[in-house]
């Protein structure tokens, strides 16, 4: 009896010693990357490919020996598109899991809910959400990989300017994306010598927009039409455009740059132009393109592992992770201030979304040229030059 007790006690002490020894050792041996993404819920089309991309590349990097001789460890929570959950999980990542940096935040809501905590804790954070407010004004610890809608608007207006179009009609949805796109387009148009002569809106759930399009067509001097929105609204606008037989140049935004839009809009989409990630035309790029290799490698890695089409949203996570690793390498460790400085000094990192040039004034680092102008030809995307 006595002996068993003693043995038990000895065992307990050893076990305790082991745990005490392993916890700090593990913490020192791995680089802990925290993430909160909307893997389920209404924004799952963003979070799902993002998480898959992070898991895929963290596995790959670990197989090749990790970063600076350390293995990467992903600590992930699913915020289900709920901003208050995102805040809770960000808090857990910072206080309990003590991560070295965070790559995550699928939606603008989730990102902005977590930003105050992250700023306070002083941990480098790379967001995967689109809105301009995330990095404007610049926040010390916050970076992001997707372009804002301002870059998309600029890219469209740039293309219009090149084609000599100066008077355009704008039709946009009244939802968040459409309303924001309408505002930036109106703000930027003057810089490209373009005048918006007609400005119409529709409800994102509307089933017919021919009245609005007729008004635009009958406006004096209108030379092109831009539809800024995402979801099914643009598919209906595109179908109505074809139905009315309008033959002005037609532009859509990056919001519908996906194959499912082509399916919905059908033949009506023929000839329209939009700004999009080069990922959509990865196989059609010339091999001399600086992004050619990165794009096609990501595409084949993702598609061979998951048996589903690659998406531009997953690419934001790819770029976020690559920027993080580049910064850790440059900082020579995971010292948070050094990693932050290294992120800010990234200049010319070729990613899937574009080529990143960060600075103290710009924590997003992409310009309008990172969007390619694509044209729908024979029911598929084609590059325009």
């Amino acid at each position: 009896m006595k002996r068993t007790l003693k043995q038990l006690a000895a065992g307990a002490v050893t076990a305790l010693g082991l745990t005490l020894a392993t916890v700090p050792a593990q913490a020192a041996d791995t680089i802990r990357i925290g993430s909160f993404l909307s893997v389920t819920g209404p924004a799952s089309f963003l979070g799902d490919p993002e998480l898959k991309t992070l898991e895929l590349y963290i596995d790959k990097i670990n197989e090749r020996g990790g970063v600076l001789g350390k293995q990467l460890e992903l600590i992930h929570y699913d915020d289900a598109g709920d901003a208050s959950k995102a805040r809770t999980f960000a808090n857990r990542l910072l206080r309990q899991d003590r991560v070295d940096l965070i790559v995550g935040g699928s939606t603008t809501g989730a990102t902005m809910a977590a930003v105050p905590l992250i700023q306070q804790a002083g941990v480098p954070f790379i967001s995967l959400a689109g809105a301009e407010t995330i990095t404007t004004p610049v926040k010390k610890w916050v970076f992001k990989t997707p372009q804002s809608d301002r870059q998309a608007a600029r890219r469209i207006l740039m293309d219009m300017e090149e084609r000599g179009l100066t008077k355009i009609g704008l039709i946009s949805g009244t939802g968040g994306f459409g309303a924001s796109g309408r505002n930036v387009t109106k703000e930027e148009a003057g810089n490209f010598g373009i005048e918006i002569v007609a400005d119409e809106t529709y409800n994102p759930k509307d089933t017919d927009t021919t009245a609005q399009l007729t008004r635009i067509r009958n406006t004096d001097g209108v030379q092109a039409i831009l539809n800024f929105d995402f979801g099914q609204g643009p598919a209906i606008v595109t179908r109505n455009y074809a139905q009315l037989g309008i033959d002005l140049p037609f532009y859509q935004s990056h919001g519908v740059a996906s194959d499912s839009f082509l399916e919905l809009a059908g033949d009506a989409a023929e000839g329209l132009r939009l700004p999009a990630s080069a990922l959509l035309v990865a196989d059609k790029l010339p091999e001399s393109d600086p992004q050619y290799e990165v794009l096609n490698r990501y595409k084949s890695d993702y598609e061979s592992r998951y048996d589903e089409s690659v998406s531009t949203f997953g690419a934001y996570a790819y770029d976020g992770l690559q920027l993080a690793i580049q910064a850790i390498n440059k900082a020579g460790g995971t010292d948070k201030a050094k990693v932050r400085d290294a992120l800010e000094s990234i200049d010319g990192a070729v990613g899937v979304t574009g080529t990143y040039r960060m600075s103290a004034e710009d924590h997003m680092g992409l310009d309008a040229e990172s969007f390619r102008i694509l044209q729908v030809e024979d029911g598929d995307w084609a590059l325009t030059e």
Partner: protein
Amino acid sequence: MFSEFFQFTFSGITLGAIYALVALGFTLIYNASHVINFAQGEFLMIGGMGTVVLMDAGVPIYFAIPLAIAMAGVAGILLHRLAIAPAKNADVVTLIIITIGASIFLRGLAQVFWGKEYHALPNFSATESISLGGATLLTQSLWILGIAAVLVTALGLFFTRTALGKALLATSMNKDAASLMGIKTSAILMMAFGISAVIGAAAGVIVAPITLTSYDIGIMLGLKGFIAAAIGGLGSSTGAILGGLLLGLAEAYTAGYISSDYKDAVPFVIILAILFFLPNGLLGSRAVERV
């Protein structure tokens, strides 16, 4: 000038035909039980999405459409058997709330099993649109109007010429008396739910080439259809068509002549005005309060 007016009118007819067809679905259940079935929009969704899912599974469109409509009919009967019938002694407001619950449930099922993507169905006619006086009209709008007219006639004949239709009206007027006359009121109600679901699903298939379809298409179309039905007078088939067209034209003219920003306020202004001056809608039967 005129071509613009024509175009706005055609837009209004397209919208109005869709609303009218949806509004028709509300009349049958309302006539049988005075319940406004807020799951009506979900029957539309089952029709449209069911067709898409079956077509994806390789079923040719000629079989996919009737199958999807039959599926909705079964869903309607199940809705009555599982949710409405057990609460038979509840008052009308409780039953209406049950239908709201059922609509959320059906939408949830569709979201989980059929996904959240939008889908398009092909046009019924090969030519997509026809040109008239400088304006274009979708051929699908004509299909919608034609089928709505057939349904109105059929419903009218059903209520006035068949024993079943008369039994249904009798049940709505006085359930106890109808039951004493040998009418199986529960079976009549079940049939009303089944037929309403079939009408709704048929509408869902016919409008899908224009509106596209997805798991949540029933929310907006169901609501607009209900407004159209209320404008025309709940329970009146002709009123449903009239209300739908009025609503569609009002939306299109507002978007065309005033501003697209105010378009969505129009249905609410119309319904307020009509309910204020004509509480039973344009063609609704005058309610008789018995004291």
